[in-house]
């Protein structure tokens, strides 16, 4: 394994651990969004339950809150678009370097 490959491997492992460990360390925690905690602070400071003055567009269109499953679908779509673009180009770069190495020509 080359040096950078090793670095990437170790770094990925650390990132994964940081992301996953809280799930095991804090059993039974809610893992809600920290925005929710944010709105609690707003309520605490203003002393009243804050009522947002506009509703999200999507909620208005479908007349209610976006169902959880659909929301996770849309988040997946977002991730998918991103991952697709990143690795499409990265794949092309990888193949290009391979081709350049094999033929000794430069694509630039």
């Amino acid at each position, binding site marked *: 394994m080359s040096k*950078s490959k090793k670095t990437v491997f170790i*770094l990925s492992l650390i990132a994964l651990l940081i992301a996953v460990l809280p799930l095991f360390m804090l059993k039974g925690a809610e893992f*809600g969004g920290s925005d929710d905690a*944010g*709105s609690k*602070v707003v309520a605490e400071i203003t002393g009243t339950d804050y009522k947002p003055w506009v509703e999200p567009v999507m909620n208005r269109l479908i007349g209610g*809150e976006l169902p959880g499953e659909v929301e996770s679908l849309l988040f997946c779509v*977002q991730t998918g678009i991103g991952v697709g673009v*990143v690795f499409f180009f990265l794949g092309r770069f990888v193949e290009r370097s391979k081709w350049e190495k094999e033929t000794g020509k430069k694509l630039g």
Partner: protein
Amino acid sequence: MNLREKKIVSLFAVFAGLFGITPTAYAMHIMEGYLPPKYCIAWGVICLPFLAAGYFAIKKQAAQNRKSMTLLAMAGAFVFVLSSLKIPSVTGSCSHMTGTGLAAILFGPFAVSILGIIVLIFQATLLAHGGLTTLGANTFSMAIAGPILSYGIYILCKKLKVNNNAGIFLAASIGDLFTYCITSFELALAYPSANGGVVVSALKFLGVFAPTQVPLAIIEGILTVIIVIGLETYAKSELIGIGYMDGGVK
């Protein structure tokens, strides 16, 4: 979603029905309707010059060096990915990263504003995450202030001859944290504490956001280093094209 989470969601839904409001329980951005109108407009106006600078930076890059557009697309896609991953943190709540550090390092402090606002509009309209009225404030914290600091730190590390990867790590993770500081500040300006004013209020918001965000900022730093290592290995000519290899962004 597991059963427990479903229960929580339905519980919130019942509450929402009872009070006729729709609490949005996701992390990071200021929610729709949570900033008074004058602040929405003010932050929007503040964003304009940065967005214009970003547009011109991208236009110049496209004219000078068409090949760099692949890297720009990748940097934008990186923001898409990282800001869609909600990750559990040590405080027992979830938050997500920004992903803006990479674009700031590769394309300078301004181009990110355009990439960031695209993501924010996507999330505000489709996901009810963030909001169109708070778009200005969210753009300023995530796509302008954070990246500018990231870029500054990266350049500073270069100047001080810090190891390149360490510089990238610091730039991306501190930029991520700074985004949260600005978000707290924006909320605090709109909701100053009755005793103590904006500062006390800002610290309160920061107290909620910061502990959750620290581990995520570390992950963001790591992921940014990984993708840059990948690019340095396979896309050297593109990186040379945008001036990355000469130790600074054009």
